[in-house]
Every structure is written in C-alpha cells, then in structure tokens.
C-alpha cells in the first residue's frame, strides 16, 4: 500500500514546482490584490492574474506549452492527427466515405480526414487570441457601449485624439534604443494608446512573446490614469487655460450618428486596411446601438458577448505569462516604457489643444480635455473633468472630454493598422 501511495505521488505536480513558479504566484497574488482590493481594472486584471497563476502551475489538460531547443516557447498548441484520403468521387450519398488512400486529385489539393484532435481547454480557447478573434469582437461591445455624440458635435476634437497617439511613436523609438526589435517596439508603443483590445491585437500579431507583459502593463496603467495624468496636465497648462469654459455642445441627430459610423469605417479601412477588423467591429457595434431597431443585439453586445470574451481573453493572455518569458529584463523595460508612452500621449493631447487655441482663439478649447485623447474610456474624460473642477467648480468638461476620449479609440486603431501594414508583411 505504501508503495502504491509512493507511486501515486510521482504522478502529482509537486515535483515540477520551480522557484520561478513561486515568484509568478506572488506576482499573480499582487495583481489580484490590486484588482480586487484596490479596484485596478478588475474586469481584466482578475482573469489575467488567474491565467498567470494557472500558467505557472503544473497543469494537465489546460494548456500545452511547447518548448523548442533554442529556448523559445509557444503556448496553446493542439495536435491534429489526420490522414490523407482519396478525393471523394462525385456521389449523392453523403455517408459514403472512401477508405483507401489513392492518387492525388487532379486539382493538386490533398484531402485530409481528421481522426483525432488533442489539446487542453485553453489550447482551444486561446485560439481566439491567436487567430485575432477576441479583440475585434470585444470592440463590437465597445462600439455598442460608446456614444460618439460629443465627438460628432465637436469634430475638431478628433485632432486631439490623433495628437494623443504621440506617445506610441516616441515609445517606439525608446524601445528601439533599449534593444527591442521594430515589431516588439511597436507592440510596446501601443500601450500609450491605453486601449487593451488593440494592444493585445497588435502584440499578438507582431510580438506574441511579449503579449503577457504588454497586456499587464496596458491594463495596469489604464487604471493608474488618475495618478499619471494630472501632474502632466498641470505642468503643461496655465491656471487661465484650466478655467476656459467651452461652448455647449449642439444636439446630434440619430441620422448623423449612423452616417458617422459608416463614414468612419469606410475612411479608416480605405486608409489602413490592416485595422479593418477592429474598426469594422467597433462601428458595427455603434451602428447597432444608434439605429434603435436592434435592441436585443445591442444588449447582447453590451453584456453577454463582451463579458464572455473578457473572461476568455483575460485568461488566455494571462496564460502566456509563463515564468520563463515573464521573469526577464524585457518585462521591466516594458513596464518603464509603458509609463513613458502614457506620459507622452497625455502631453501630446494637451499640447495639441493649446496649438488649436492659437489657431482659433475665438472658440477656445480647454487644454485639459486634450489629455482625454488617451483612449481609456471614460476614465480619462473623468480625469479631465475632475481637474477642471479643481479650478472652477462650475466648469463641466465631462461631455467635452468624451469627444477626444472616443476619438482616441479610433486613433489607436489607425496607429495599430499602420504598424501592422508596415511591419507584419
């Protein structure tokens, strides 16, 4: 019996625990604490932290990690056993299956019969990230949740959203100087856009080995927007500028919002086809919301779809955080570069607003709303509003700040499309 017990213990996972795993458990615990106790973007950080914990446990049937001889690892790999079959002869009997392989059909294509598919739970679920399905579908929900009315009422705030992408490009240069490749630098730079699905979409395409670190950095800094942005906003604006009161926004009709969704989709896809998946889903979700005739679809997109995908996306991303890849000097560099990206994006938006006031002084823009071009919706807009309230409690900037805030979502998607079109092909 003791022998049986001993042989059973050889099948347990205790023997596979390493000190790196223990460090990752601690990191996962810190992320869970920040998410649950401190409220740091819990909707994403909880699944990511849980995924990281699972990835650093000796699991079976959850996720497969392929380690090659050169040290690189690949996650979410499933095996398919298939054998070639004869090209099916024209037959009306759908149940007729040829049993013996024969010569290749004239077209040169080989027909395979799948006999067995082997993989763990997240080997299949993670295909949603690998195949770039989850981020665009989450954007469907984001579009269904977003009101572009303030942006349509004041379209020049689109330029603030564009200027807020400055951090992406400056961080790209910084990452290059620190030794990252162009693809890795682009994936790190996108953190400055403060857009989680776009960051995951781009990182998965260009630098999947950094996906875990980039996702953690992106979502952590998004929740730190109220801490990171205000000092930069105060540094770049004067007291006189902070109390600028903007004209009330005009009412935007339903037809305008519908035209906006279609126009943005067409313009962005024509300019940057590689951003098609993100932009198309964002505008589809928004069209469903604004048309008013698809209430059930909108409710699904805003709730069930986005919630389910958030769980799967977060845990899949967390599972890329194996100790071997996460506990590396590059992770620390990514965390530092992430702050730089955020800072420059904030500065870019604020400075663009000041330049705008030089060009159109008769219709000024409060520069504080420029920082909302960082597309952490609606947190960045709320930060702009709160900062404005500190200096003038009767100055309500929230709806004005929502314009550049949602413009930043479009700007980040366009920037991601530019990186993909120039680096991925």
């Amino acid at each position: 019996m003791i022998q049986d017990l001993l042989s059973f213990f050889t099948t347990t996972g205790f023997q596979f625990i390493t000190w790196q795993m223990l460090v990752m458990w601690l990191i996962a615990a810190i992320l869970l604490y920040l998410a649950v106790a401190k409220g740091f973007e819990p909707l994403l950080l909880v699944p990511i932290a849980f995924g990281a914990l699972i990835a650093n446990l000796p699991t079976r049937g959850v996720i497969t990690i392929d380690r090659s001889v050169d040290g690189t690892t690949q996650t979410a790999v499933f095996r398919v056993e298939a054998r070639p079959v004869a090209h099916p002869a024209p037959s009306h009997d759908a149940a007729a299956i040829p049993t013996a392989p024969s010569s290749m059909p004239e077209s040169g294509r080989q027909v395979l019969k799948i006999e067995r598919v082997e993989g763990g739970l997240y080997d299949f679920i993670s295909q949603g990230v690998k195949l770039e399905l989850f981020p665009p579908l989450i954007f469907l929900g984001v579009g269904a949740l977003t009101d572009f009315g303030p942006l349509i009422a004041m379209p020049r705030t689109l330029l603030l959203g564009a200027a807020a992408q400055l951090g992406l490009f400056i961080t790209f240069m910084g990452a290059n100087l620190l030794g990252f490749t162009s693809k890795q630098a682009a994936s790190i730079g996108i953190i400055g856009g403060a857009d989680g699905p776009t960051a995951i979409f781009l990182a998965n395409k260009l630098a999947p080995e950094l996906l875990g670190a980039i996702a953690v950095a992106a979502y952590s800094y998004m929740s730190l927007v109220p801490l990171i942005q205000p000092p930069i906003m105060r540094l770049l604006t004067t007291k006189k500028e902070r109390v600028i009161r903007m004209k009330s926004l005009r009412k935007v009709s339903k037809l305008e919002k519908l035209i906006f969704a279609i126009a943005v989709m067409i313009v962005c896809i024509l300019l940057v086809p590689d951003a098609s998946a993100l932009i198309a889903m964002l505008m589809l979700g928004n069209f469903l919301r604004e048309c008013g005739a698809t209430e059930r679809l909108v409710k699904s997109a805003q709730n069930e779809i986005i919630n389910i995908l958030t769980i799967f996306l977060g845990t899949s991303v967390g599972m890329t955080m194996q100790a071997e890849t996460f506990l590396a000097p590059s992770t620390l560099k990514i965390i530092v570069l992430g702050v730089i990206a955020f800072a420059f994006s904030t500065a870019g938006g604020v400075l663009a607003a000041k330049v705008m006031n030089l060009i159109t002084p008769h219709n000024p823009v409060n520069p504080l709303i420029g920082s909302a071009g960082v597309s952490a919706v609606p947190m960045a807009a709320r930060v702009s509003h709160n900062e404005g309230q500190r200096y003038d409690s009767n100055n309500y900037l929230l709806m004005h700040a929502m314009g550049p805030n949602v413009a930043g979502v479009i700007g980040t998607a366009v920037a991601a499309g530019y990186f993909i079109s120039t680096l991925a092909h």
Partner: protein
Amino acid sequence: MVIYPSALAPLATLSEHPALGESIAYQLNGLTVVFIALSAIWALMELIGFFFRRFRTAPTAKPAVLSAPPAPLNGNRPRHEIVAAITSAIAATLDEPHRIVEILPLDQTRDWAREGRREIFASHRTR
C-alpha cells in the same frame, strides 16, 4: 504591376533595429497617417454637420413661458427650484415652442400605475 515610389521604401522595409534617422522618419510617417485619417473624418463630419444645421426643419425651441402661477394641490405650492427643474426638463425634451399652463402634483395612487401600463403596452410591437 505595382510600383512603389522611393519615398515609400523606408516605410516598406524598416529594419529590425533601425538607425535613429530611419526611426524618426518612420514615426513621422505614422503620426501623419493617423492625422490624415482623423482629419479626413473631421472634414467629413464638419460637412455633414453643416448640412444638418442648415437644413434642419424643426424650429428652434423657445424658452418655456409660464403663463400662470402653478395651481397648488392641498395648498402646497411647489418650490421655485422644482418649477425651474420641470421647465428646464420640458424645454430640453420638446424640440418645439411650448407654453406651460400649470404644474400639478400627480395622484400617486392612480397615475403612476396608468403610466406603467402605457409603457408596457408601448413596448410590444403590434406588427
């Protein structure tokens, strides 16, 4: 056959570890692309907004005019702040000139139930 102008050459073939000058050119290109995209959307929305503002058929809503003092129920006159809030809400909701004749408190035992029934019936499409 596609011919790429030489200006696009650095864009199409950015090296893994580009030189500083190459990197700066790449950034400027990228920022320009983002600005072009969003500027194009801006121009389009300004044009559409111009037509919507110009050819809007509904008259501009005039401020509500209170023609008579609100009739109090049970001798209770509504506070000035409540009157202001009600008139503001009506002005924001109705997009046409209007005149408020009187403000009365609802009979809570009957009218809310009627309003609830009206909402439920309105939510079901008859076709």
